[in-house]
């Protein structure tokens, strides 16, 4: 689909295999996550195996506390697994330093969280610029790219406003703009509609779908809402730290 673009992005980063038809974008091998609180250990993830190909739109469902966010944080390189191996574009990232992980998050992954997570002090356009700021792009170019990203989520007129001056749905669209501004090939969205009513939620989901279909961005979506999860093309279910089912979602099953 957009293989050529991804190839170009990938080539400057050492250690990545150029993705071909056989290399999945994300490959988890026996991933485990155990939290220790005092003397007690909580095994939140156990032997999770999962492959995600580029361009996929994967939904993860499961009850609250089943380990969805933990799994997403590991895939998003925010956290390191306590067991197993994680290959991102063919590169083993399970034992990288925190700065190396920061670099990967900056270049490869955009996050959208339930609580929007915008910095209140910064204007909308400054919030969207933030990933570019950390990748060292000159100010002018960064502002241009941020404005382009805001246009994609139909918010080009709100750039100079501040997060508390726009609605929740709009804030979440700003978060989407921030996630895609650096041309990251992957977006991780953890309950992105959790704080929105169903109309605003549907509006936000429309943009994920658009980004996935028009730009070939791989999307991994966590939700416990069946209607939201159904925007994806593939659905996995997590229960007590293991993947219990995996299914292809029929096109237009929703409407």
């Amino acid at each position, binding site marked *: 689909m957009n293989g050529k673009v991804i190839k170009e992005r990938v080539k400057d980063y050492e250690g990545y295999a150029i993705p071909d038809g056989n290399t999945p974008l994300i490959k988890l091998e026996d991933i485990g996550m155990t939290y220790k609180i005092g003397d007690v250990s909580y095994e939140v993830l156990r032997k999770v195996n999962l492959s995600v190909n580029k361009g996929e739109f994967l939904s993860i469902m499961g009850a609250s506390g089943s380990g969805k966010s933990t799994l997403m944080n590991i895939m998003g390189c925010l956290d390191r697994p306590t067991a197993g191996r994680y290959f991102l574009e063919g590169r083993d990232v399970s034992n990288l330093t925190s700065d190396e992980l920061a670099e990967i998050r900056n270049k490869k992954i955009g996050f959208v969280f339930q609580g929007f*997570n915008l910095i209140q*002090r910064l204007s909308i356009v400054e919030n969207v610029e933030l990933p570019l700021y950390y990748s060292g792009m000159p100010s002018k170019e960064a502002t241009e790219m941020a404005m382009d990203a805001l246009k994609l989520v139909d918010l080009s007129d709100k750039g100079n406003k501040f997060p508390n001056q726009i609605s929740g749905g709009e804030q979440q669209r700003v978060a989407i703009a921030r996630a895609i501004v650096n041309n990251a090939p992957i977006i991780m969205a953890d309950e992105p509609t959790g704080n929105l009513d169903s109309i605003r939620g549907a509006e936000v989901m429309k943009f994920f779908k658009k980004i996935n279909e028009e730009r070939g961005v791989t999307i991994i979506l966590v939700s416990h809402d069946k209607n939201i999860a159904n925007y994806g093309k593939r659905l996995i279910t997590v229960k007590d730290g293991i993947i219990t089912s995996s299914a292809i979602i029929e096109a237009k099953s929703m409407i």
Partner: protein
Amino acid sequence: MSKRVKFAFFLDLKSAYKTLLRNKVRSLLTILGIIIGVGSVIATVSIGQGASVAIQSSINSMGSNLLIILPGSSSLGGIHTGFGVLPTLTLGDVHAIRKLPAVKTDSGNLGMPQQVIWRGNNWSTLVMGASSTYTTIRDWPVAQGTFFNHEQVASAANVAVIGNTAATELFGLINPIGHIILIHNVPFTVIGLLSIKGFNAFGQDQDDIVVIPITTMLEKIAGTTWVHAIAVSAKSNKDTAIAQSEITALLRQRHHIPLHKPDDFFVRNISEIAQAANSSANTFTILLGSIAAVSLLVGGIGIMNIMLVSVTERTKEIGIRMAVGAKKGDILKQFLIESSVLSLFGGILGIGLGFGISSAITAFSPLKTIVTTEPIVISLIFSLCVGIFFGFYPAFKASRMNPVEALRYE
């Protein structure tokens, strides 16, 4: 600086500035220590500089190439002040010194506090016995009338030249010249009024004085032949050292001091006195400077405290920044810039305060303070260092946060 670093730096600076303005009162309270510290550094140094210039100019005002001979054993190791006179220098010594080749003029001095009376007004002032060369050596001309001459000194005439303060106290608006004043019940005719000299470096009013011939002083007032001090002007700057050794040799000979015994007088030249005065002014500056340094330290701790609060309050923001790719160093830098801007801002306000204090001192006291660039630059650098030093621990703490936990913080 690379483009990246520049961009990052300016955004950090902008954001630090915004953060500061958001909590105006808190920021101001935080940097109060720095403001006071820097303010007192600037004020203190300006006082020190002003004092040192004042000392210098009052020493210069004593005349050029000046040597002062004081009675006493040099083993005492200091300048003899106060009015008690050690009996080693005589008027004979004064006359002998005058004949030395390297010496231009001289003035044997003996000063004593005395009651001076004119028509029921009385005023306690310094009565100074001096030679006719006093005005030359002290570089202090008369404003009205004349100074006494060599003959009047030789004949121990009852004439007096009065300083401006003493004249005002005794005569008010009346012109003192020609009037008779009583000193120690001896009548003196006022023949001159000295020009205004002002305060010296030690805050003494130099115009509160009555000058009479040294001979009259010794015979009729003090009742002694011992003089308090001999002021000598060398012929030139180069001759100062020669004059100093000539005088030493002459006085040792006149006082019959055996070779193995120390001098019973000191010969001080003006640059030695200037040095002594300067070093005491420096000690004062260093002392107050260290008090200022302590208050900067306290200010630094205040900054550390507020930065720790700020880091905790902004845990979520740190998490967001980390999620979009901020490295440890980026977070560290952001908070360091913030604490530096904070303390630098304190430094700038402190400089303003220091300027205020020193101009108030100039306005309301005889001392003219002098603000130079060095303490300003040093204070700015120092407050920047305080910001970096005390901001480091909070910034370090922020940079070591776990992104997942930081994001979960509410």
